[in-house]
């Protein structure tokens, strides 16, 4: 075995610039396909005098270098990192990937973690660039331009120039950084050499307004300096026009907050009495339910119903609807999600089924009155959905007060109980609805109650033949209702 030569790698690669990803990719491809080990390569960036390019081996014919697709994306991002070891690191990763294709999925592997950390640093730096670039305006009219000086930690100007083009398309702007610059003339983006802070304008009149905003949007009672510095580290402060205010704001915060707390409430402002008299003197009379002699008045009175606690979580009372001389009243269970939003009964999916079947049966929906046994929606929230809960006997009992008034005012010949809750409300006791379906029960007060299922029952059946059969049965019930109406 030959003695190892001191620090002399077999291959030396010289990249055109810090962001010469295609140069790296080309070299890495040739080297990897010739099975050149990571430790046999040294990487340099022009104009580094030590790194002259050695001849790279030619691409062997007929072989392709296959790597997981996401590797290229990851590598392109990590390539912008300022770590001088990144070229060698990414080559090592490439080397390992050819032997361990699942490497990137193993989040706990040290190399995978390093790649991720590098990408994260580049992404964070990019995000901070989007956030903390501050343009200063020079010139007016046709000469108007916006120039910024920014000091990124990594080589991210090229990567982020498009963001500024998409955002400031209608502006002419230049972003200067120590290693590169980006310039947009309104039509074309040009990446140029680095610059110095002195090349950018020193100020802009609008900064005084921005500083005023910064001072006043700050709430001294909530001082959290660490939280601020975590997101806006001090290294960025020197290029932020608002940052010089921070020390004084922090120093004065406690005093300002204590002063606010200590300050005793004062007497109302002079204009307050006038405002109150002008806008709020008309006390709105709460509608008196007992005195309501018409359906519209009753509906108005029901808006503020507090007879049971269901109003708390619902949007509004959903009162009955239909002509006040209707010959039949349909009573459902309670409003659902859509009814709760709209404030009208039977407008949701079950309402649509109900409407369609009434139509098939030849019952004119405009001539019937529809209402619910319980007039607020009872539900359990599940994320962005509301799951219907069955109202309990107490809630049905509480709401019966309204049902009774509705019947008193309309005096129909017939009531249709849609489902068990409606039957409970109308008959005062629980009955087996499926068994007694299609029957007419006469109440003590003479009201005839036709019992059937709730149309939502049809919606809950998944099997289509069975669903169709159930629909037919309900249609038959509605035809019977029509016959009873005529009788």
């Amino acid at each position, binding site marked *: 075995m030959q003695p190892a030569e001191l620090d002399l790698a077999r291959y030396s690669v010289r990249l055109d610039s810090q962001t010469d990803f295609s140069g790296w990719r080309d070299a890495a491809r040739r080297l990897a396909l010739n099975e050149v080990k990571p430790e046999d390569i040294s990487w340099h960036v022009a104009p580094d005098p030590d790194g002259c390019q050695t001849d790279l081996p030619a691409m062997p014919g007929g072989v392709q270098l296959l790597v997981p697709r996401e590797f290229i994306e990851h590598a392109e991002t990590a390539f912008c990192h300022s770590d001088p070891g990144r070229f060698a690191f990414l080559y090592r990763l490439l080397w390992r990937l050819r032997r361990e294709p*699942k490497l990137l*999925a*193993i*989040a*706990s592997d040290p190399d995978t*973690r390093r790649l991720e950390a590098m990408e994260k640093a580049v992404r964070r730096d990019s995000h901070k660039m*989007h*956030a903390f670039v501050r*343009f200063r*305006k020079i010139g007016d009219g046709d000469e108007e331009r916006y120039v910024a000086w920014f000091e990124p930690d990594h080589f991210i100007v090229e990567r982020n120039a498009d*963001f500024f*083009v*998409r*955002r*400031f*398309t*209608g*502006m002419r702007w230049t972003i200067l950084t120590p290693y590169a610059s980006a310039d947009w003339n309104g039509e074309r983006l040009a990446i140029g050499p680095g610059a110095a802070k002195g090349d950018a304008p020193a100020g802009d009149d*609008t900064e005084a307004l*921005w500083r*005023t*905003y*910064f001072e*006043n*949007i*700050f*709430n001294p*009672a*909530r*001082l*959290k*300096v*660490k939280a*601020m510095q975590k997101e806006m580290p001090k290294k960025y402060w020197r290029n932020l026009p*608002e940052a010089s205010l921070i020390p004084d704001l*922090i120093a004065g*915060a406690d005093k300002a*907050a204590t002063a*606010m*707390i200590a300050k005793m*409430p*004062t007497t*109302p*402002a002079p*204009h*307050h009495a006038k*405002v109150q008299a002008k806008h*709020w003197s008309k006390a709105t009379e709460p509608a008196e339910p007992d005195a309501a002699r018409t359906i519209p008045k009753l509906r108005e009175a029901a808006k503020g119903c507090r007879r049971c606690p269901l109003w708390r*979580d619902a*949007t*509004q009372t959903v009162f009955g609807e239909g002509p006040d001389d209707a010959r039949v009243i349909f009573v459902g269970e309670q409003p659902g999600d859509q009814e*709760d*939003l*709209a404030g009208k009964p039977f407008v949701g999916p079950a309402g649509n089924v109900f409407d369609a079947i009434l139509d098939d049966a030849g019952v004119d929906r405009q001539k019937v009155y529809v209402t619910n046994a319980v007039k607020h929606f009872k539900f359990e*929230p*599940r*994320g*962005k*959905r*509301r799951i219907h809960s069955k109202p309990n006997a107490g809630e049905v009992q509480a709401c019966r007060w309204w049902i009774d008034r509705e019947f008193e005012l309309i005096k129909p010949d017939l009531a249709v109980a849609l489902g068990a809750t409606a039957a409970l409300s109308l008959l005062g006791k629980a009955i087996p609805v499926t068994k007694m379906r299609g029957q007419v029960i006469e109440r003590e007060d003479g009201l005839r109650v036709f019992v059937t299922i709730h149309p939502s029952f049809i919606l809950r059946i998944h099997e289509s033949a069975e669903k169709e059969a159930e629909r037919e049965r309900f249609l038959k019930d509605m035809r019977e209702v029509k016959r009873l109406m005529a009788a």
Partner: protein
Amino acid sequence: MSALTVREKLAILSDAAKYDASCASSGSAKRDSLKSGGIGSTEGMGICHSYAPDGRCISLLKILLTNFCIYDCSYCINRSSSNVRRARFTVDEVVKLTMDFYRRNYIEGLFLSSGVIRSPDETMGEMVEVARRLRLDEKFGGYIHLKTIPESSAELVEKAGLYADRLSINVELPTDEGVKRLAPEKKPETIRLSMARLRQKMEEKAEPTLKTKKRERFAPGGQSTQMIVGADKTSDDGILHASARLYGSYHLRRVYYSAFSPIPDSSSSLPLQKPPLMREHRLYQADWLMRFYGFSQPEILAGSNDGMLDLAIDPKLAWALRNRGLFPVDVNSAEREALLRVPGLGTKVVAKILETRRHRRMRLEDLGRLCQSIAKLRPFIIAEGWSPGALTDKAGLRGKIVQSCEQLSLF
């Protein structure tokens, strides 16, 4: 009285706006100015352009159109009885400020709110006019958030949704009783109805129209609201109940919690103390549990004595300590839902565990590399070569975890 300068107005009307917690510029449709040749873009993810020393992000120009107000809500600096200095921006001034700030990359856009002057429609009309001018005259593609006035007309709300990314209506307090007591002129019923209408509008506009088959634009960033925490006596359980109801009923993107902050010239009906910031933080964590971790609202505080979140530890850890029977969970075999309930495992770490364990069995030290701290985690998991044994059920466990996590805590 001499006329105020724009700078003086800005000082008054941004000071007046700072009690609104939201500054989010995220969650809207992606948009840029390449086609319009105008100014502005939204890229899905919000950008915080600065941070105030209160640790809060400054993303939007958050101002009031005016702080004159006919309402007298005791928690609000702008209530009609307050002796605060009053000012009023013109539509022109707000449009110019927004564009001047945006061009210099100070902001992502505008969050415009207002005191109610004369009538809700008049005030709302001016706010919508600001948004219209920005979009149509200035070809502004940045973010616009409009605070909607509940009593304003349906036509104005429709227009607002056409120009704005997000609309919001503050419920202010978790219970109707609280609103009645502290904001006697506000009507909780109307606020609910307005939120319901916004949800209906958003759903209606999400459907392609019959004629053009295209979707009409309506507040692509959805609606949000804010609740003040600590101005009334509602428990955390009560607050979370209200949030769950609001998310479910009106499909809100966010509920913001704002620790009640003492205001200058405060009303005597309110607590005069520093804002309960830790409580606010714990509420946000609990809110996250409901939205991203599969917790239903009642279970978050089930079994607690007073319906209040533990201020010393995060709500997931507190829940796990009350439900030790469900632990330990095996990280190499448990379902995603179970992993999400392990204290110390966030959604991203859980995703990484699920991916990694397809290729190798995970040990405690593997998890150590993925998480911030395993002190919280250890008692609740089984990993290759690790079992917590009696640790899970140990009596002093809470104290031990608190001790080892202390240096990592937020304050």
